[in-house]
């Protein structure tokens, strides 16, 4: 075989392994899907969302129904998760609690990242005394005892919507991410495309939104996912003590708090809410880990995984990427 034929063969092999019609987004989705744990986590979250919102329609019990024949009975045909001491259906309560926890997490996580991105990028890009004030503000918020302050403030939103509670939760969780975003912004500030935009006269807000933030998209996405888990954990911890979601509103934290004394005698009062809470946080953690591997395969831990996979022959990375990996 002549050298020309050999090179042609290599070219064809490389072209064949490149994803057809792919872009970076398609590649990320493919990497994510390959990670079975992450896919499993995503499916679990979707199933839980469906169960939480559609589940209550499957049983005929309502939230205000009291079953006088079945106080504190175990799981049965008519009460799938059993009943509480006051005769309420446990399945309904658990699903309502799951709704609350899921929504709080799915709103609170991205909200935390949004606040962090706003403060961090403005501090990093504008610099000067704005930067110093914002950094000092971040430090003050870090020192605040967030659990105590949230607990003290809890009676004030007794009558109002729980949305206020979510905002407060997010207000105490954004600080560390803001620091990381600020240092990333500092490195991005002097890149050519940012300088070019500045010299063209593009206004500061536009530069931040159009150039700086999209370049740290992977960090922001991962941060939002972790934020979901942190928000759910924080909310359930506060609700456990009675400081978060107020009765008669129900959340997984309040259910666990109510059912803790009866773990050995009437286990269904505790096990179902606890199991679903653990399931939610576990699934979110899996998805977050999978996203981190998919968005940033050069991150620690993923390097060895990629090398092993490509050695096994699953090469659907762009040819350029393989070269970059070897060069590392």
């Amino acid at each position, binding site marked *: 075989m002549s050298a020309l034929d050999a090179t042609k063969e290599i070219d064809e092999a490389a072209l064949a392994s490149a994803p057809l019609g792919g872009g970076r987004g398609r590649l990320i989705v493919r990497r994510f899907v390959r990670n079975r744990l992450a896919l499993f986590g995503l499916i679990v979250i979707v199933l839980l969302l469906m169960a939480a919102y559609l589940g209550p329609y499957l049983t005929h019990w309502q939230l205000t129904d009291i079953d006088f024949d079945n106080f504190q009975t175990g799981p049965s045909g008519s009460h799938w998760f059993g009943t509480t001491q006051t005769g309420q259906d446990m399945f309904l309560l658990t699903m309502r609690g799951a709704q609350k926890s899921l929504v709080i997490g799915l709103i609170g996580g991205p909200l935390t990242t949004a606040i962090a991105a706003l403060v961090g990028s403005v501090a990093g890009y504008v610099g000067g005394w704005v930067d110093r004030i914002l950094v000092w503000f971040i430090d*003050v918020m*870090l020192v605040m*005892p967030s659990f*105590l302050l949230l607990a*003290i403030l809890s009676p004030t939103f007794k009558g109002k919507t729980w949305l206020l509670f979510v905002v407060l939760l997010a207000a105490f969780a954004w600080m560390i991410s803001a620091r990381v975003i600020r240092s990333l912004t500092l490195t991005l500030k002097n890149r050519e495309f940012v300088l070019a935009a500045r010299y063209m006269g593009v206004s500061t807000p536009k530069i931040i939104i159009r150039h700086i933030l999209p370049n740290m998209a992977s960090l922001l996405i991962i941060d939002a996912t972790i934020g979901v888990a942190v928000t759910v954990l924080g909310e359930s911890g506060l609700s456990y003590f009675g400081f978060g979601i107020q009765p008669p509103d129900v959340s997984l934290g309040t259910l666990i708090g109510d059912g803790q004394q009866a*773990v050995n005698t009437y286990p269904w009062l*505790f096990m179902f809410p606890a199991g679903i*809470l653990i399931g939610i*946080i576990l699934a979110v953690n899996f998805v977050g880990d999978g996203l981190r591997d998919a968005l940033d395969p050069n991150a620690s831990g993923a390097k*060895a995984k990629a090398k092993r996979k490509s050695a096994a022959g699953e090469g659907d990375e762009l040819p350029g990427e393989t070269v970059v990996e070897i060069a590392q």
Partner: protein
Amino acid sequence: MGAYLLRRLLNYLVLTFVGASVAYLLAAIALNPRSNYEGKHPTPPPAVITQMLNEKNLNPDTDVFVRYGHWLDGLAHGNFGTEVQGGSVGQDLARRVGVSTRLLLFATIIGAVGGVLLGAWNAVRQYRASDQISTLVSFLLISTPVFTLAILLKAVAIWINNATGTSFFQFDNEYDVTVTAFWPQLLSRAQHLVLPTISLALGEIAFLSRYQRSTMLDVLGSDFLRTARAKGLTRRQAIYKHGLRTAIIPVMTLLVYTTVLLFTGATFTETIFDWNGMGQWAVTSIQGNDTNAVAAVALFVAALVLIAGFLSEIAYAALDPRVRA
């Protein structure tokens, strides 16, 4: 470097003061100590309640900044104020810090050492069965909130107690108060420590081992480790003498922060196992509308954050010679 540390210390002190002040002002505005008295039977006349509240600087009708001034004045003289029930906040603070320290001592040591070792070991045996199992178990433990884990452990312990007919696992407070002799009391304390320590240490081991594993993986592929092997060190020597020390630096900041802040995270554990420490006080003081106690807890937490930050900077400088100017 000394000047730098001094500046950081001053910065931390100002921040601690601001944090504690905000907590006091919020507590003074939002809490209502009057409700403690109004719930009593027979209800004291309002004038008497007002006088009692004024004595303790707890009257919600006084201007909040006047009360703040009194509180600051007391602090300057080392007096943390009076509780709603009449005790001294300062004395309670000292006692409860001791209780919390006794609870957390073993948990933090076991958690820190166990986490680092488990993470390093998993990194070395990446993708073997032990790593996969450890990863799954760690994920499960990280995803379990502390209070859920503690309640589950308590349930398992009760089940074991009933099944074996003994009362090996104890979980009400620190020790059995009816036991007074030295060795039996020590044994009783140990028995009461087992469950809280496990519930705190498990979470910390799982959390730290994940971080340690990823930093260790970075180090395992590095040049200096390969050089050490080329020099003739065995694999074990190279990893544990050179690799671990480098891999531990990023984890150290995290480690110091979580260790010091475990005081506040023990809120759930102390409540569930009925230890009268700082964590439990944080909850009961708010539920009891005790403004001075809440302020003292907030001051304690803020001071802890200060100490944690300071210690982590010193630890970083000690471990990483590149930082020392």
